[in-house]
């Protein structure tokens, strides 16, 4: 006699205890601490803060530990936490011009006012496994600039702008909209597009950006300036009426110089693509800037032919928390829909057999 499966609740509880145990791993080893994650897996923390849309190194470290290092799971945990947090208002716009710069490069000019500053980067490292790290070797002390780097470094793109070679940043009138307070509708303004890309999946943006370089909506990019450093965050409380500094965050900013635009009568100018993210995230902000520029196709009178230029396609599929949920929901039971298909398929096949039999009988 068949008995319907029961006991889903006990199964779930047992599965979760097993998960906890797997996460812990070998109990003879010390647990990884949140400080260790925050200090030594910094770029993982940065990515979780970026795509989780919450600047909190401690919570991001906890999410990474809880997710057993699965970045998208950690990002999801942060997003779910974000839902429960109270919203006090909007910060003043960040002034990235006054960034205290840790790293700053331009691929467009050999030298720039303020200098090229290589900073902490994987660039030019030889990708050979460093076995001294396996032996927990402590690194040698690094040499630093003698005094604090200037905090008012001119922007490379503005140097071009003063000559009229660079388009002015397109400033849309009024307060920017907020992706997290109103659902995204199409067509979306650049404010909403950039918000979407900022929390978008790094791998998705990277692949799209790459596709533009390979000819699917080419934008002739030059890395005008990439800068990494700390900026102050200011907030104007309603009762004070003037901004106060509430903290400092590390961010990476990328300004791309792209395909010029003009005609025989309108002086041609370079166009822009922009990327900004929490922490050190050059791959992300470069990809973001390339995709931002591609999505400006309509505004710049370019024909939309490539995936990266297709606003609905890009913005609807960039979010990895949405994407992973829907792809993985195929694990949920679909007995009912599948049964519906089975019934139909069997009947359609049987009808063909009946028709065949009839035909043969008639012959």
């Amino acid at each position: 006699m068949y008995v319907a499966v029961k006991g889903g609740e006990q199964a779930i509880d047992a599965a979760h205890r097993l998960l906890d145990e797997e996460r812990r791993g070998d109990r003879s080893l010390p647990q990884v601490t949140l400080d260790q994650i925050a200090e030594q897996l910094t770029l993982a923390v940065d990515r979780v803060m970026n795509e989780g849309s919450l600047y909190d190194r401690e919570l991001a470290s906890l999410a990474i530990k809880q997710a057993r290092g699965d970045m998208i799971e950690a990002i999801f945990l942060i997003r779910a936490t974000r839902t429960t947090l109270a919203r006090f208002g909007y910060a003043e716009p960040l002034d990235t011009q006054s960034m205290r710069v840790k790293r700053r490069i331009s691929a467009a000019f050999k030298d720039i006012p303020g200098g090229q500053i290589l900073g902490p980067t994987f660039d030019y490292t030889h990708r050979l496994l460093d076995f001294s790290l396996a032996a927990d070797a402590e690194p040698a002390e690094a040499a630093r600039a003698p005094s604090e780097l200037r905090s008012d470094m001119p922007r490379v793109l503005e140097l071009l702008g003063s000559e009229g070679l660079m388009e002015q940043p397109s400033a849309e009138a009024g307060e920017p909209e907020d992706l997290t307070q109103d659902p995204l509708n199409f067509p979306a303004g650049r404010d909403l597009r950039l918000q979407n890309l900022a929390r978008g999946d790094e791998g998705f943006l990277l692949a799209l950006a790459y596709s533009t370089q390979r000819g699917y909506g080419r934008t002739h990019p030059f890395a005008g300036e990439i800068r990494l450093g700390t900026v102050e965050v200011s907030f104007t409380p309603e009762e004070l009426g003037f901004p106060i500094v509430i903290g400092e965050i590390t961010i990476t900013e990328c300004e791309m110089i792209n395909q010029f635009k003009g005609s025989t009568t309108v002086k041609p100018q370079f166009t822009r693509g922009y990327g900004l993210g929490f922490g050190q995230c050059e791959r992300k902000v470069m990809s973001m800037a390339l995709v931002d520029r591609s999505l400006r196709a309509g505004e710049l009178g370019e024909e939309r032919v490539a995936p990266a230029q297709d606003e609905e396609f890009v913005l609807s599929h960039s979010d990895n928390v949405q994407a992973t949920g829907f792809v993985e929901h195929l694990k949920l039971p679909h007995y009912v829909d599948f049964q519906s298909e089975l019934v139909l398929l069997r009947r359609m096949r049987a009808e063909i057999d009946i028709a065949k039999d009839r035909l043969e009988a008639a012959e």
Partner: protein
Amino acid sequence: MNAPAYNFAYLNEQTKRMIRRAILKAIAVPGYQVPFASREMPMPYGWGTGGVQVTAAVLTPEDTLKVIDQGADDTTNAVSIRKFFVKTAGVATTERTEEASVIQTRHRIPEAPLTEEQILVFQVPIPEPLRFLEPRETETRTMHALEEYGVMHVKLYEDIAQYGEIATTYAYPAKVADRYVFDPSPIPKFDNPKLDNCPALQLFGAGREKRIYAVPPYTKVKSLDFEDHPFEVQSWSEPCALCGSCHSFLDEIVMDDKGTRMFVCSDSDFCARQRGER
């Protein structure tokens, strides 16, 4: 680092107000998909976040909640969602359809008739019935605005041309109150007739796609069809092997590796009642 305390039914009050406003507009324009600022929930998108947000917005402490997935109360995701509301809202729960004041469901409508006192909340993956015919939101929105549903009729007709019948078996499109074509979520078309003129309020939540829509009580819901190919529902050649019901939706159970099969009710509560177990 301290664990935070959560509000009644998890959502904060501002989020609830936003969802509640969307629900009222959804009821006022039956079948129209109202965009809402769906939040990330502690379960993944695609696992019922839309239904959970709608349930959280309508729930009161006096409610008795029933949660089903594929018609059954004991499927893993139904268990998980029921637990979430027990934990965050402290509401009573039941497996009995007639005892529930709010029923959250995925992929089925209970076999037992619903009453005026009940609210049925559907979890919806893709709310747009035209989406697989036209992937662009800007296009489908215009089609709804103009009440231009030609593409849907063409699709159904192409089915008939190719297979001799309409080959859609679940998420079968229907027209609400003679105006909006809507997606009733992936319920089998067997359940479509229950949508029509139902005494209970039916609410639909799509979290990932950020849409809420509604079928008010006693509202006409007409499954799309053609005069020469009228809408019809699935039927089985044998009754439920457990309760003997001939008029419920049956799940197929594979019994062994020789292909032995049996058919049993997908609605586990209905089946138990038929058997007189309760």
